[in-house]
């Protein structure tokens, strides 16, 4: 018994050292810009870089757009499949899992081929069109997480009864979705949304290949040309990921409390 606990601690501590070292190393490196002393110079340089503001803002907008489009696409579909088309469930689930199977680089390769300037839908011909294509690509990437989250949220609801109750009170489909279903799966949507945000904000491949000024390609460019600033960027990116995951924990805990209160 004692021996087993010793091995358990050993495994955990060795693992934690492996995970802690790169984080400490990055933090330390990011502070080393000024010779001979620790300073926040690297952060100052990055945060005052106009390209940082532009690309970060672009990626935040893209992430928010992805979340909105994802919700509009996933919530009505998951609801409708649960209510009316249970037979379609395997098909829809398969489709939402496909983005995990097909590497994103292949999907965007297909976009470039299919929607180039000489095609029937020349999306890459204009800035707006390319942005839209990037938004669609991000929505595809977010699909597995978003659908899983919303479908799990719907599972705990009695969708049919809620719908009938709303209908008997004279509600139309839009009202049902907006005022009955959406509030009930809000926590699920939020956890899907924060995960989507964390994925989109630093995404590199799609943005780089579609040539859009997003945060991921900006980070890569800084990494290729500077010494200390990349470490500062990594610390910032890690903080954002941490924040998103923390918010997911927070909203899930919040839901558990409200559920207990309801009982």
């Amino acid at each position, binding site marked *: *018994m004692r021996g087993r*606990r010793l091995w*358990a*601690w050993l495994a*955990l501590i060795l*693992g934690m050292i492996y*995970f802690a*070292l*790169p984080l*400490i*190393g*990055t933090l330390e*490196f990011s502070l080393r810009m000024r010779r001979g002393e620790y300073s926040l110079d690297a952060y100052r340089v990055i945060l005052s870089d106009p390209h940082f503001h532009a690309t970060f803002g672009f990626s935040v907008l893209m992430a928010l757009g992805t979340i909105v489009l994802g919700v509009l696409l*996933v919530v009505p*579909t998951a609801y*409708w*499949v649960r209510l*009316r*088309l249970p037979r*379609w469930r395997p098909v*829809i689930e398969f*489709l939402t*899992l*496909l*983005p*995990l*199977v*097909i*590497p*994103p*680089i*292949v*999907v965007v*390769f*297909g*976009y*470039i*081929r*299919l929607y180039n300037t000489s095609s029937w839908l020349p999306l890459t011909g204009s800035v707006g069109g390319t942005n839209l294509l990037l938004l669609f690509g991000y929505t*595809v990437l977010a699909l597995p997480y978003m659908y899983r989250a919303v479908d799990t949220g719907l599972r705990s609801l009695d969708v049919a009864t809620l719908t009938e109750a709303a209908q008997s009170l004279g509600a139309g489909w839009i009202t049902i979705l907006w005022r009955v279903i959406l509030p009930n799966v809000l926590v699920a949507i939020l956890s899907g949304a924060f995960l989507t945000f*964390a*994925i989109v904000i*630093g*995404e*590199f*491949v799609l943005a780089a*290949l579609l040539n859009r000024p997003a945060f*991921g390609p900006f*980070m*890569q460019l800084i*990494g290729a040309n500077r010494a200390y600033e990349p*470490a500062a*960027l*990594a610390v910032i*990116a*890690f903080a954002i*990921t*941490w924040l998103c*995951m923390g918010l997911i*924990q927070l909203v899930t805990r919040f839901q558990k409390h409200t559920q207990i209160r309801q009982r």
Partner: protein
Amino acid sequence: MSSKSGLSWLGIVPFLLFALLFLLLPTMNIVVGAFRNQAGAFTLENITNLFQPSILSAYWISIRISVASALLGCLIGFAMAAAMVLGGVPGWVRGPLLTFSGVASNFAGVPLAFAFLATLGRLGLVTVLLREWLGVNIYAWGFNILSFWGLTLTYLFFQIPLMILIITPALDGLRREWKEAASILGASNAQYWYLVALPILWPSLLGTFALLFANAFGAVATAYALTGSSLSIVPIMLFAQIRGDVLQDPHLGYAMAFGMIVITGVANLIYIGMRMRSERWMR
């Protein structure tokens, strides 16, 4: 209401249309392109052209990195998850470890590459400390962060947490009664693991291995930010091909992408199949 039921499939048309336009058709386009020549006729030549030394070696090193990082990720992740669930450590370890795993498994791409450069690069913290404190110069020993082991070590940062997240529910599902029943029947601890626990966990282990493999095989951003184009692995080669047709044969590019789909597709099918099998024990 029932009068509408014949048309109820209309409700999922927007989703199906979106999936068709931005997921299925683009992928099909690449797959079809892999089996066509410049004139548009059917051919297998692109596929056979994949079997040239430079492309084969790219696939080979990609597969080796993916296998190594998936295998080590599975072993270390399993050890950490088993220590947490079965090792008798206090309960407060669990929450932070799982939360951290959630963060780290999503911390991939460009920033992860920066973190490892700052740690194990030529001027990285660990490299410098090892040299100054222990007099060990790992670069003189042949280590390089821009190499097979460097990339594998970096990938482990998201592989291990993913393993912990997936295998923990499976370990939680091992019932105390099974262990008790085995020991009443006279089984030793080793026999219990060998004859009861591992056969139950086997589908989960194999499935997660396949998932981690696909995860590493498709990773582009981390590798690109870490090595630029100095290490010829499949995703980086494909990236360069899409940017500037470095193979000087667009259809060879499609064939390469097709090869990637086949490999990640098979790995994911194994994962999904194994997951369905393992869920039988989870009820």
